[in-house]
């Protein structure tokens, strides 16, 4: 299935959880925040929520800023 990750189309195995997605991307869940289809996804739901075809995911982290 195809998801939109940070604005780019991306193939992903069906029913993959957000947590699993983060693992495939080598991101520690504690360091990132996730917006799913415009709404923030709480960390506790990373493991529960499975992705569906067409889901729009924003994966953000802290960077240097003023």
């Amino acid at each position, binding site marked *: 299935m195809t998801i939109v990750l940070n604005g780019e189309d991306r193939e992903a195995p069906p029913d993959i959880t957000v947590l699993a997605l983060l693992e495939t991307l080598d991101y520690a869940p504690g360091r990132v925040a996730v917006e799913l289809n415009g709404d*923030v996804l709480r960390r506790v739901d990373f493991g529960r929520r499975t992705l569906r075809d067409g889901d729009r995911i924003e994966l953000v982290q802290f960077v240097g800023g003023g």
Partner: protein
Amino acid sequence: MQTGTLTIAGRSYPSRLIVGTGKYPDFDIMRRAIEASGASMVTVAVRRVDLSRRGGESLLDFIDTTRVTLLPNTAGCYTADEAVRTARLGREAGLSDLVKLEVIGDEKTLFPDNEGLLQATRILVKEGFTVLPYTNDDLVVAKRLRDAGAAAVMPLAAPIGSGLGIQNPANLRILLEEIRDVPVIVDAGVGTASDAAIVMETGADGVLMNTGIAGADDPVKMARAMQLAVQAGRLAFEAGRIPKKLHARASSPLEGIVR
């Protein structure tokens, strides 16, 4: 000697200086500069992870979050909606309700869009955020931000990164006279130590800066200079300076001179 502490939303921070984490030559200089600044709060930006760069060093590896509080900002947002979304993501990433709220209204000057800023403030306050809005020195807006529940008012001294120092001391004085129930933290435009001292001498509760430190030839040394300047300015404010006079007043006695 005590210079009091900076209290935001009922929580006290030992230092009145808040520093940014952007534009440093590298993470290690940033780490040492933060340490030299003695800041108890540092701002961070919220950005999409760059999927092309896997792993590598991460900002948070260089910030001792046991000693400094993270203050996520909404830099780069040009609408209340963008700012609100970014604030929510920042809260999720940092697990804290603090947000330095920016709604930018002009690309060249990065001046705030006060109308959008007020909207975003109202929304985020409802959602339980501790909102620290970056604004200009407009007293009317400052009062509305306060009334909307902002935990502080953060007027700019001069355009972000300009290093011009406080451009309108009269407006800052007026702001400090009128805004008494939340802290006034001067944000942006400080270029060197005396700029920070002047701001504090005027009675500001704190100063927030980034480029002035990160862009200096020696950021660590400038960070230390800023820490001392903020303390010096605050102490001078508390000590009560002498009045200005056009003419001289002898500091040595006029009697007993050998003639």
